[in-house]
């Protein structure tokens, strides 16, 4: 197993999870619990990116250390849009699509941590193994959060079944356009 490849892939997936968490926070700013928790959880991924960049040096990798800590101008636009849209049914469906997306991204990150842990064990790199043991549980918690919020919100938002199908199908295209 190429550890440098595993590190690079995990670094990439953690960075996108951090960015996606912030994006979802901005987009649902008026949903206060989503906003604050998503931002708290983004910090975990930012910290993981930082630690991966550090440990990557030992494997000859130059991984960037800067996960987005704020989502910049576009973020403010999304926050404003969230405030203007308020709590209407459509944003509810958008939130379900966003949480579904976050769950999938976090699941990918979790698998990447598992692969890295296997590799670290094979290479007897105890420092790297310790890092995976510290960080992987947080990826699982990010995943469970998205899952739990979906369970709480879906009865409210997808009263008609066909609308949920639309969400599931439209999920990919929504994320491409936003």
């Amino acid at each position, binding site marked *: 197993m190429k550890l440098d490849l595993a590190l690079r892939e995990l670094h990439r997936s953690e960075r996108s999870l951090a960015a996606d968490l912030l994006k979802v926070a901005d987009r649902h700013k008026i949903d206060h*619990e989503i906003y*604050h*928790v998503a931002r708290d*959880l983004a*910090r975990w991924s930012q910290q993981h990116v930082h630690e991966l960049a550090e440990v990557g040096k030992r494997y000859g990798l130059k991984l960037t250390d800067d996960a987005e800590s704020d989502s910049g101008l576009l973020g403010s636009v999304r926050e404003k849009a969230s405030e203007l849209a308020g709590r209407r049914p459509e944003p509810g469906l958008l939130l379900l699509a966003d949480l579904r997306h976050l769950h999938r991204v976090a699941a990918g990150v979790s698998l990447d941590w598992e692969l890295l842990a296997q590799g670290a064990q094979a290479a007897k790199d105890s420092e790297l193994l310790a890092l995976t043991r510290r960080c992987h549980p947080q990826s699982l918690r990010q995943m*469970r*959060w998205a899952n739990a*919020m979906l369970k709480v919100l879906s009865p409210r938002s997808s009263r008609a079944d066909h609308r949920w199908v639309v969400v599931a199908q439209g999920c990919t295209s929504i994320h491409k356009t936003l």
Partner: protein
Amino acid sequence: MPPWQDVESAFEAWKQCSAGRPCDYTGLSYAKLRGGSGIQWPCTAEHPEGTERLYVDGQFWAAPEYCESYGRDLVTGAPLEPTEYRAMNPGGKAVIKAAEYLPAHEVPSDEFPLYLITGRTVYHFHTRTKTGRAPPLQAAAPQVWVEMSVKDPDAHGASEGDMVEVSSARGAIHAAVRISGIREGVLFVPFHYGYWDASDPDQHGAQYDRAANELTITDWDPASKQPIFKLAAVRIRRVGGVS
């Protein structure tokens, strides 16, 4: 759910629901409930007068097959799954959970350079609906104030007793300054002063600008869902001298 048609039958129905669960009421009758005061649950045929102490001899009710909830992740609020809980606590021991430090959800900025914290005074309880009607307590702390560190007044041009406006991104209140031993850069406002005993709202200068909770962010604990009402980034502006 058993049927009911009045308060007594509703209580009987509720009793049936509680049978065999930790908070078992089956030994309680409606007459007993109305009669005296302070019957401690569980109250069963075995303990008809209630149970004085819970968890005697370290017996908690945390066994996976008996407990009423599996708890939550303290940071995310996500509930634990039954299998997860069973693996974590098969012996039904009491669980103490720690939550890591998280930075405040609003921190001071150029626009709002100070921290505001809110809290209590010894003379009042919550919004004073009781203590505000007890004359000695009401006289001891009749009006809202804002505490400020001895190191801060110069920077904000306010001194002891001055009226100031404290504002956050959400609202503003007016309060008299009290200089105290609080930490530099932090203000304190008691949250007891609201609107139920404020003067006539139609009247100019009514006291509709003194509730500390108007300033705090909308945020709650993800596990307990308790609103936080504790923290805000604010600025302060002197609006008048000692009143």
